[in-house]
């Protein structure tokens, strides 16, 4: 059984998924089923140097920039509805290929046009993030998972968690830090300009 983390918890990926070199970051959620505008949640990652900031625009991997760090990080594309089984969005990370100057990989989820549509993460059910081995995807004993639960309410963007270097290994930390200002408010604090 994959390791389940609670908010603030962290674990070594070598312990959670021994031998993993290609990780998949999977995010899932269930859209609201009542009437109203459809939900469109987006997953993105920021590649941060040791100063806690991106090295450049290309270190923000999202729906309009699907590849980062020379292909070490690959966004698998946008799921606009959140419908269907399994992860709604996935990001692949070749851990050994990540540049040495990338110290953290921050995983963000955000709601498109949240303000205009009056939406927030309090209206999203069963949101989760999981990390598993891309080369052994069906091995349920490997990997780590963090379920958001009821932690979010009025937030429109969320730092789900992060992969980070610790000594010579990669670890995962569950964060669940919410932001009310949407994706822009998240990425600007990491050194990106929105417009």
């Amino acid at each position: 059984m994959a390791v389940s983390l609670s908010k603030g918890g962290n674990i070594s990926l070598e312990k959670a998924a021994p031998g993993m070199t290609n990780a998949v970051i999977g995010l899932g959620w269930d859209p609201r089923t009542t009437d109203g505008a459809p939900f469109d949640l987006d997953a993105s990652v920021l590649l941060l140097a040791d100063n806690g900031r991106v090295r450049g625009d290309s270190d923000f991997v999202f729906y309009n920039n699907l590849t980062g760090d020379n292909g070490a990080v690959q966004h698998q594309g946008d799921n606009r509805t959140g419908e269907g089984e399994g992860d709604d969005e996935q990001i692949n990370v070749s851990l050994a290929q990540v540049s040495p100057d990338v110290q953290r990989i921050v995983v963000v989820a955000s709601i498109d046009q949240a303000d205009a549509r009056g939406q927030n993460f309090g209206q999203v059910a069963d949101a989760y993030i999981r990390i598993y081995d891309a080369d052994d995807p069906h091995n349920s004993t490997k990997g780590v998972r963090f379920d958001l639960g009821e932690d979010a309410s009025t937030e429109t963007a969320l730092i789900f968690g992060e992969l980070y270097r610790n000594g010579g290994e990669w670890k995962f930390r569950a964060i669940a830090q919410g932001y009310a200002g949407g994706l822009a408010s998240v990425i600007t604090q990491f050194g990106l300009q929105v417009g």
Partner: protein
Amino acid sequence: MTIRTDLPYLRARSLRAAQPAPPAPAVSPSPDLADVAGSVAEQPSASLDLSAPVVPSPAQPPSASLDLSAPSAPAAPAVSASLDLGDSAPPTPPAGTPPAGTSLTLFDETPATPPGGTSLSLDAPSQAPAAPSRSPHGHTRTADHGLGLPTINAGERRPMTENEPVVELTRMQSAAGGLDAKVAVSNPSEVILGLVFETGDSRESLVLPGLSQQGPDPRRPIFRATTSGVAVNLRRITDIHRLVLFAVPTRPSKQLPGGTVTVTTYGESRLEIPLVAGPTLGAQALLTGYVVEGRLVLRAEHDPYSGTLQQICAAYGYREISWRDPYTPLV
């Protein structure tokens, strides 16, 4: 032997220092104009040397090269038909540069390119993408595909003049929020803005207030008419291929009022396009946009010609639209 006195210029002739012939000269016809200066004496060449006359060495075939520069040591051992009008020896090509190039360098200095991006230089821009290199940990770094076009900062306003008609939005600017085009004239009812677009799956259509309020899919529109113009949902940037913003005068005389069309981004950057007062044939193209590797490149067209809406669309390559009449698309 008879000494001729009718050829005094021959007294000024000098013999160039003998140059060792390269061991195995590569013979390739090169149009590289930068390779030529001073490199003509040793190789079979089609260039013409106008410098001090040289007595051909028996080991070197006669040259018909054209060299307008002072003689200097040869740099490239290849046959060249290039023409260097510079005043110094040709720069040594970087390692890996093939000796037979196709550059048309006429000067030694990099020409200053105006920020408007209208340079006709055939050289690579100074911000040319770097060649792929190998990272310290083994994998190949992909080239940075910076387009090298003028950009705009958050909150900045930029008149898109004829000299500086182009702006490239960053990936974030191209993907965040929306692009809002509004008309700023004394009487806004005298002109309406519309968009003709092509989506990533090659669908062409229009948004025109009063006729087609949004498109291409009314349930999830990318383009829509607003109360004072048109808007593009940049969250769907990956579904956009290109677009043209146009103005349609509402007066019966088809006269466009003078004014400005503003295009604003999510970060409150504002592009300003002049709206020139004058008669039209029904529509006037104002701005084109192309999505290039996730970046929206906008260009104020300053098109001196107007036309019917159908003509404007056709002129900018939108030919997959059906028409009720030259002014009314079938949408």
